[in-house]
């Protein structure tokens, strides 16, 4: 056991150094440019349109197939080739790496909620709304999702969605109940689903509400936001370019306490909710563990394909005691990247993507993945395109009348959402004082925003 190499210290250090590689992306030289100023609008003369167009899209597998159907159609119509890069994993990190290498794509198709983040990085280009042909047909709600704090337009909306309440109809029927329309009714139905054996198997193995309570990607506060807005609260108030946090308002405390009670006093949430991402939560609803789920319409086709298909309905989220009817709105945006040498082609691409034809292909072209959940183009009717499926009509109605986006124009929004999630996860797990927790969160927001 004696022989050992002479320099164990160095050996060990080197081993660890190799074991511990944080591949930090980003960086680049210390050159400060100011590309955010770029407000030029590209000529949209079709004759000048040339490619190829490099498009990055946050998609994979089925959704990528759907996008590619659209891309092929675009190439067919304009002759402009598209080079696609698609991924779901660490999309933003890869984009940062491309930015550092000064090798940005021409177009990025990503969540609407990335607006503030991308804008503050200086990698997306603003433009004049009127320069987009067909832009008049888009809904105001959709256009509002691409507006920065200083009132500039930074992207073309491509798809929209609003959260709906999914409810098991067979469970309602078994217990002689109706789908809830108010918070109180919601709690009652949830309690009945939890305690009255709605699936009739003689075991106490069902729960009222499915909530993704993990802090990952900010899921828990993301799920709660609908109730916040319904109660009349907001995360921040935006006045001109000043952003003031108001998450400690009475309305916010009311909504947060009610939400916490679902876990702490009513006990109607599925087990393990505080670690659950949407993956586990979808599963809880789709395997008949839980009877109600506030989620996006993208879960309609996936749920239809499971055991609960045909046994559930979707309704507008239940109203707050004050009658407030908001619901979380989200979307997908086409962002124009700075430094593009094919701006005309990029414009033509966005214009194509919002045409009724493209929107329809995005909705139903590939039944496995609907990349346009709700059309942003007001001339397209969801129910008609989806073969008279009323549920999509409800989704569109709810989006148009009650859709409420997160404060996505705030550059620090991702960090703020994470902080809200941490606060909720922590306070709910200990069933602690919500008003104190929100006061603390408000202070944290002031720090983040300063």
């Amino acid at each position: 056991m004696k022989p050992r190499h002479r320099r164990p210290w160095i050996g060990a250090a080197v081993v660890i150094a190799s074991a511990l590689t944080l591949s930090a992306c980003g960086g680049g030289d210390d050159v400060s440019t100011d590309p955010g100023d770029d407000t030029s609008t590209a000529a949209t003369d079709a004759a000048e349109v040339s490619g190829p167009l490099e498009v990055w899209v946050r998609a994979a597998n089925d959704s990528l197939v759907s996008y590619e159907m659209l891309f092929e159609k675009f190439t067919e119509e304009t002759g402009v080739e598209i080079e696609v890069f698609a991924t779901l994993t660490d999309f933003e990190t890869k984009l940062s790496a491309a930015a550092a290498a000064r090798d940005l794509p021409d177009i990025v198709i990503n969540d609407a909620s990335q607006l503030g983040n991308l804008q503050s990085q200086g990698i997306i280009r603003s433009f004049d709304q009127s320069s987009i042909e067909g832009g008049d047909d888009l809904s105001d709600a959709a256009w509002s999702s691409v507006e920065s704090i200083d009132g500039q337009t930074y992207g073309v909306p491509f798809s929209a969605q609003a959260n709906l309440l999914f409810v098991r109809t067979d469970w309602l029927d078994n217990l002689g109940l109706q789908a809830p329309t108010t918070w109180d009714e919601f709690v009652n139905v949830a309690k009945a689903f939890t305690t009255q054996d709605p699936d009739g198997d003689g075991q106490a193995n069902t729960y009222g509400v499915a909530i993704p309570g993990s802090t990952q990607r900010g899921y828990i506060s993301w799920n709660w936001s609908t109730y916040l807005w319904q109660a009349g609260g907001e995360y921040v108030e935006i006045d001109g370019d000043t952003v003031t946090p108001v998450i400690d308002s009475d309305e916010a405390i009311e909504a947060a306490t009610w939400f916490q009670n679902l876990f702490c006093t009513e006990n109607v949430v599925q087990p393990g909710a505080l670690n659950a991402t949407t993956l586990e939560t979808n599963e809880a609803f789709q395997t008949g563990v839980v009877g109600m789920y506030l989620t996006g319409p993208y879960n309609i086709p996936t749920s239809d394909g499971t055991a609960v298909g045909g046994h559930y309905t979707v309704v507008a989220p239940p109203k707050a005691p004050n009658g407030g009817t908001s619901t979380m709105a989200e979307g997908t945006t086409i962002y124009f990247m700075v430094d593009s040498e094919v701006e005309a082609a990029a414009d033509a691409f966005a214009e194509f993507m919002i045409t009724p034809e493209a929107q329809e292909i995005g909705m139903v072209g590939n039944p496995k993945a609907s990349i346009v959940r709700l059309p942003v183009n007001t001339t397209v009717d969801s129910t008609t395109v989806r073969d008279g499926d009323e549920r999509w009509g409800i989704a569109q109605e709810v989006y148009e009348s009650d859709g409420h986006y997160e404060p996505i124009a705030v550059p620090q929004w991702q960090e703020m959402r994470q902080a809200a999630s941490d606060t909720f996860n922590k306070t709910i797990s200990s069933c602690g004082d919500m008003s104190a927790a929100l006061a603390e969160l408000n202070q944290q927001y002031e720090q983040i925003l300063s």
Partner: protein
Amino acid sequence: MSATATRAATPSRAVPAGGSRPSPGRRRRRIKQGLTPWLFLLPALAIFAIFKFWPVLYGMWLSFFEVRPYLGNLWIGLGNFERAVTDPALGSAALHTLIDAAAAVGLSMLFGFLLALLLEGPALHLRLIRTAAFLPVVAALVVVAQLWDVIMYPSSYGMLNSFLGFFGMGPNEFLSDPDQALASVILIQVWKHAPYDMVIFIAGLAGIDRQLYEAADIDGANRWQRLRFITIPALRPVITIVLMLGIIRGLRVFTEVFVLTNGGPAGATEMIVTYLYKTGIELGDFGYASAISTMLLLVTIVATSVTNWIRGRKED
């Protein structure tokens, strides 16, 4: 792998010096002999330099910046490090990591050692059981974590809970309870890593001279005395290796926590690396994330060096 470089280079230095004044021919031969291993290692070293050492050094460099990929990085000196030492979330993540590393490494070693004592030997049935015991190590960590998530389902009809129900215990919340989550994660790590330690211990046990045991028998030593005065001292180098691997593994624990709890509930299982992932990959704060990982690297180097130093002192 890089350790091989140092190890391979050392024997050449150990070549006897020969006469006091070597002839020119002999000196040339010696230089040649010294260079040969390095030449053979060059391709591997070049690859490591590009894909390992350079990113590590570059990450350290980025620690001093507010990283803005497109607009250009801003030099902020020690700003990120100051933030790190005053960040309460990082402090609690560091504490959890230390508890997790100490408990998981300690218990894995203990169970690994006991398993090794039980399962050492050439008999067929022992080999079969050893293989079975080793399976957790071979299984992919993500899969293992998912399985444990199912086993620890926090209601009375969860697998582990129904088992505990037979004894009138539970149902436990396990991963969903801030007070039990860290212990649950540790349990999974022990289950996964103890067999790995077992294999190293078995190799160590096989190397112990049987005559020592026979001599001890003749002297009338009992089982415990044989263990205490022969087995454990003979295994000391093995224990250091297992301990060092454990510390490195423990400090950078990520996958099982990320899959099972993502640091929750209530941050009860937040580890340094899960926190690092959140700041770097999810929030894009690369400068701060680099600073944290640089600090983690330094702590790991210090911890392993201290282990090594203690080992060296004990053996000399």
